[in-house]
């Protein structure tokens, strides 16, 4: 089994922290992992992406081929759409629905969301709003990770949740607790979506 994830967002949003948590969990489960990151110029507010590949056998390329990714995990809706040609037919888009507008020609928001929601497998959630609502402004990325958890079948959800704790352990008990809650909020949000309408 293999899972290829394109992580995307805007420089400074924290996609590499998500990659670190997933990487920790994958390593703990004995999976093989390759993760290509973007450093340098584009980190200054430009579009950034990371190719994260997990497998229970070996992985050849550091980059994910077109049309094969199992997931686009994005902290920004336009950045999720940017990598659409990399998504496999059955792949999922899990993205923040909050636009990050640091350019003058950001597309029309309604059209953007319409195009995003027209994709066959998409979960768009307002992680920024949820983070504010639960007084955890710095944990939007962990909420997003929680939302992605049930789609990452190669990873055990409990192991992934524990990795959140291990990655934040050096920042103290309170930060760890907040991020556990953030993970659960994202996870529960998606679970509710999957329940049949009453």
């Amino acid at each position, binding site marked *: 089994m293999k899972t290829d994830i394109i992580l995307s967002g*805007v*420089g400074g949003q924290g996609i590499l922290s998500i990659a670190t948590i997933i*990487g920790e969990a994958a*390593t703990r489960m004995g999976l*093989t*992992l*390759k*993760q*290509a*990151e*973007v*450093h*340098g*110029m*584009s*980190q*200054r*507010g*430009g*579009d950034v992406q990371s190719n994260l590949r997990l497998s229970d056998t070996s*992985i*050849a*390329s*550091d*980059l*994910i*081929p*077109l*049309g*094969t990714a199992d997931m686009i995990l994005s902290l920004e809706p*336009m*950045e999720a*759409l*940017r990598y*659409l*040609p*990399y*998504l*496999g*037919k059955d792949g999922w888009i899990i993205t923040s629905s909050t636009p990050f507008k*640091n*350019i*003058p*020609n*950001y*597309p*029309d928001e309604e*059209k*953007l969301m319409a*195009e995003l929601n027209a*994709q066959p497998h998409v979960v768009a959630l307002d992680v920024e709003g949820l983070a504010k609502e639960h007084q955890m402004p710095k944990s939007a990325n962990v909420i997003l990770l929680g939302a992605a958890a049930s789609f990452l079948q190669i990873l055990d959800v409990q192991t992934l949740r524990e990795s959140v704790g291990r990655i934040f352990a050096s*920042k*103290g008990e309170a930060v760890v607790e907040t991020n556990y809650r953030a993970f659960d909020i994202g996870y529960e949000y998606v679970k509710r979506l999957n329940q049949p309408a009453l």
Partner: protein
Amino acid sequence: MENNKLLLLGDQAIALGAIHAGISGVYAYPGTPSTEITEYIQESPLAKERGVHSRWCTNEKTAMEAALGVSYVGKRALVCMKHVGMNVCADAFVNSAITGVNGGIVVVAADDPSMHSSQNEQDSRFYGKFAMIPILEPSSQQEAYDMMGYAFELSESKKLPVLMRIVTRLAHSRAAVAVRNAANETACTGRASVPTDWILLPANARQRYKEVIKVQPELIKLAEETSYNALSVTAGGTAEKGIIACGIGYNYVMENYPDGCPYPLLKIAQYPLPAEKITRLAHTCKEILVVEDGQPFVEEQLKGVLPSTYIVKGRLSGELPRTGELNPDNVKAALGIAGAQVYAAAQNVVPRPPALCNGCGHRDVYDALNRVAAGYPDAKIFGDIGCYTLGALPPFRALDSCVDMGASITMAKGAADAGLFPAIAVIGDSTFTHSGMTGLLDAVNDQSNITVIISDNLTTAMTGGQDSAGTNKFEAICLGLGVEPEHVRVVVPLPKNMEEITRIIREEIEYKGVSVIIPRRECMQTLNRKLKQKRAEKK
């Protein structure tokens, strides 16, 4: 530490491999994608315990020369840089093959095909061939780690520096690496084994050059024998094609053949080229596809190895794109495999170029320059390499050039010599000490009519905030180079000081000679990092 597995970037694997090979120092100037090699050594507990030198150098040339000194006294040194840094250290690098080494020297050049964070995509393997030294090109993080110890042994056994060439996708990709026990540092002998080798007077240099030529067949033999250059030939008959895959190109080939490559395949990770293995490969197939990242280094050389009628395909023939990095998709196309069905590109997506951070002092510098330049329609502003190059993009569009480290000052000088007024240079603090100081001396000696802005944010910001060699020394450097004291001006780039800054820029433009204005305010990124650290310490 035995058989321990660590999750490492390619850069970090190289760093740990070098520490474990017993280096006494790393000498480097920051440059994407090479920066993380030195940073890893700076943070490594083992390197700290051993007192491995890891402070940043002023530029790649001072780095290479310091490494030569380490080698002279018998110790091992690592030198790291991005590809264009090779141009800066080329004098020392090429001559290091003539002096030869005593303690091992490994030079890591991190190439950036596709120019993710660079101004060209030159292929450093040409430098290795030019200097006639062994080149290693690892295909994976594990190989990068393993090759480090091998590289130092190779350097010492052949008495030559060794070049390791990597590309962005290896430097900045993470994978698990099995690590070994650390070797001890080599002992300091305090002297070179053959002292005259290091005195490159023509008589000595001619002798040494002959020796470098003489050792070439041995280097080729090593490339033929090493397991890093693995030839696998399919059984029976002549195959439709064979493949030569260099460095990371091997991974992209194998990505397309998960059940094993059906064609004869030669993986190359050590140069000079193993001509005999290539000839053996050619005998098993009708044509050869060369998969190499960067420029057609191997593809061109094959013409001298194989008969002229033999078909060689690659970047020159158009099977692979002539520019840009390799990826699994362009390699797939070159292998003649149909691509997967893909979603069409989305409609509502626009480019999101990088920009100067909010609150960055460079912003206020460009704001001021644009205000002043509005009054001088002929003004040209020569830029340089760093975050502030982003001043060329909207909303500022403030720069007229960006070429290489230090070129802002010297280009402004040349343009002023040729009659341009006003000729303004914008250079960052770290770039100024890297390659701007000598140009400023030229301008002073020529009494050129230029205005130099040293935009000082107290760090090497573009590469992530490394120490800058000239911090707290800029006024003294400018005065020492002969700039008149009343024309070395310091300002604080903040919106509230705009009136003062623009007035000073105007005054110095009007001064007929060399003037230097130093807008000084700390980088927002390093400032925020320090504040965060302080808050964490308080808790």
